[in-house]
């Protein structure tokens, strides 16, 4: 069990012949993911890492039955790569690429509305389901262990930190989802919390937010109404100076909502166990699960 990906996932990698794409495709396969194809326009007909490379996703799906994609295409072409994967009705896409223009993502996310494809990212570490030995992303597989805690985060390495703390305390994970650090992305906290809430393999949740925007407040509203599973949370950036990452007018829409304190307050009010230190996530979850 777990969410988004698993035993039935058949992965293709867009940009498989590039350095990063090749390196991580191999790591995913070594972890246990069923890698079935690669797509690099112009290199169709060749073989890479022992799997066939195609010019288009349409061909790859027809020949290999691929149903998920991991994208390593460079930023200028990444939006187009996501659109191609959605057009082929893949079930799942993790877009790892960082630095896609925001207005490109505005179009992509609008195109995805009403379609069946689930996009995670961009600018994200991807998703891993340790119980079903399936990894679509760039996270180090060996820090994970199978179990019943779902992890959702806007960050990459901070997620690894949280996961390592869990694994150090023999607390396994059902699925870990990095939703990515971009302002406009395919999947938000609410989407993942909803899935964890319905997943029988997930007993508790770690949620890691960041300053800026109001995705955490949306999550707090959802949690209050729907989630009865225990959640441990942390918001990164309480010490960050205001205005450096958010544009002036960008700050007005969410108003004070962009600050760490506002997010912490909203999540606390929704019943989430908030920790003030990123070093305490593991201990807090152990306590919640009665393991300490």
């Amino acid at each position, binding site marked *: 069990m777990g969410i988004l990906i698993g035993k039935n996932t058949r992965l293709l990698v867009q940009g498989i012949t590039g350095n*990063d794409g090749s390196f991580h495709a191999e790591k995913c396969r070594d972890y246990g993911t069923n890698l079935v194809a690669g797509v690099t326009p112009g290199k169709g007909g060749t073989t890479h890492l022992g799997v066939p490379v195609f010019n288009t996703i349409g061909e790859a799906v027809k020949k290999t039955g691929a149903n998920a994609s991991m994208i390593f295409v460079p*930023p*200028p072409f990444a939006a187009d790569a996501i659109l191609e994967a959605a057009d082929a009705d893949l079930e799942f896409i993790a877009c790892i690429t*960082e*630095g*896609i*223009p*925001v*207005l*490109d993502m*505005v*179009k992509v*996310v*609008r*195109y995805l509305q009403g379609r069946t494809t689930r996009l995670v990212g961009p600018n994200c*570490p991807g998703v891993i389901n340790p119980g079903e030995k399936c990894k679509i992303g*760039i*996270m*180090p597989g060996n*820090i994970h262990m199978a179990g019943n805690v779902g992890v959702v*985060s*806007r*960050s*990459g*390495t*901070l*997620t*690894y*930190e949280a996961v*390592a703390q869990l694994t150090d305390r023999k607390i396994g994970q059902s699925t870990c989802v990095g939703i990515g*650090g971009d*302002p*406009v992305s395919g999947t938000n906290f609410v989407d993942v919390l909803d899935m964890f809430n319905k997943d029988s393999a997930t007993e508790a949740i770690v949620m*890691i937010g*960041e300053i800026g*925007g*109001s*995705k955490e407040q*949306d999550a707090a509203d959802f949690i209050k109404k729907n989630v009865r599973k225990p959640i441990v949370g*942390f918001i*990164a*950036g*309480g*010490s*960050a*100076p205001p205005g*450096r990452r958010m*544009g*002036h*007018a*960008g*700050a*007005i*829409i*969410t*108003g004070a909502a962009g600050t*760490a304190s506002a997010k912490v307050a909203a999540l606390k009010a929704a019943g989430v166990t908030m920790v003030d*230190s*990123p*070093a305490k996530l593991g201990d807090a979850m152990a306590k919640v699960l009665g393991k300490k």
Partner: protein
Amino acid sequence: MKLHEYQAKALFAKYGVNVPKGSVASTPAEVAAKLREIGGKGVVKAQVHAGGRGKAGGVKVVKSPEEGEQFAKGLLGKRLVTHQTGPEGVPVDKLLVEEVIGIQKELYASIVVEPSMKTAVFIVSEAGGMDIEEVAAKSPEKIVRLSVDPIIGFQPFMGRKLATGLNIDPALMRPAAAFFENLYKLFVATDASMAEVNPLVITTDGRILAADAKIGLDDDALFRHKDLADLRDIGQEDALDVKASEADVNYIRLDGDVGCMVNGAGLAMATMDLIKLMGSQPANFLDVGGGASEDKVKAAFLILLSDKKVKKVLVNIFGGILRCDVAARGIIGAVKEKGINVPLVIRMRGTNAEEGLKLLRESGLKVIIANDLQEAAEKAVRAA
């Protein structure tokens, strides 16, 4: 990337968004000449990347070319300190000289990409000329929002809706709608992250003008806007920040004394939070990025060390794409080149952590190794 007001207004004009008559000057004599061109009287505005210019003495309505020239002499080549700049201020190299406009009404308009709507959104308000964040907090009913579906783009009815929301005289509805339509065209064509007009003025002679203009550009889209990338004025930016952007590392200088270098923005922020929680202050935010090379780590570490406020250093690397041994080599290279006379605490975990720590131990550098995040922060804060 930020633009100067004169650059933003030139773009506004290019896309048909009306701005006051004016042009930019670099010397006092030029200021006087430009004022003569528009009839002697005018407004002279310091071109800096900071708000609060008016209150800081960077904007003046002058009655004659001579007065304008005097004002320019006092500003050009100096540094302007506003509430947004910090005590060192920002250099004034250029002045914008504009016609004086008769104001009938001051409004507010901006476009931003709103993450929760996942579209570009217009924000307009009748409360122009004021701090819009304050308006949003105190009288949110005075703010009107309109989301533009990227598939259909801006439609004429949206312009009418915005004009109506601003209680604009029906006789001016057409030019107002055109103003908004052109502003949206500009926003999309330049890949802006923000376009703001405050105030948006209805003049006594019935014109609709952007009296001030701000544009923020999406750095990630500059690859397809070479002409816009050339507008960058690095003189307005912190010298270390510029160095960092040249090395392609994400660095922001802060006020504390614990320098930190981390891989990943979230972990970097979390590390800063922990330093603060332990009673100290971070000297910077520094994310070396995911796939950093040895050279990049070295460049990043040198930038961190060149900040004189740094009294101790904390390195926190959770190896993923970035291997810990690569990070260790970069750090060792930087220290061998420039030396280090403050305590250095290092925590490494993840990909090739053992190898990285071994390299550090064998390098002969005085390094304090920490096993986990908590211990790392404690050791860094207490180091002296």
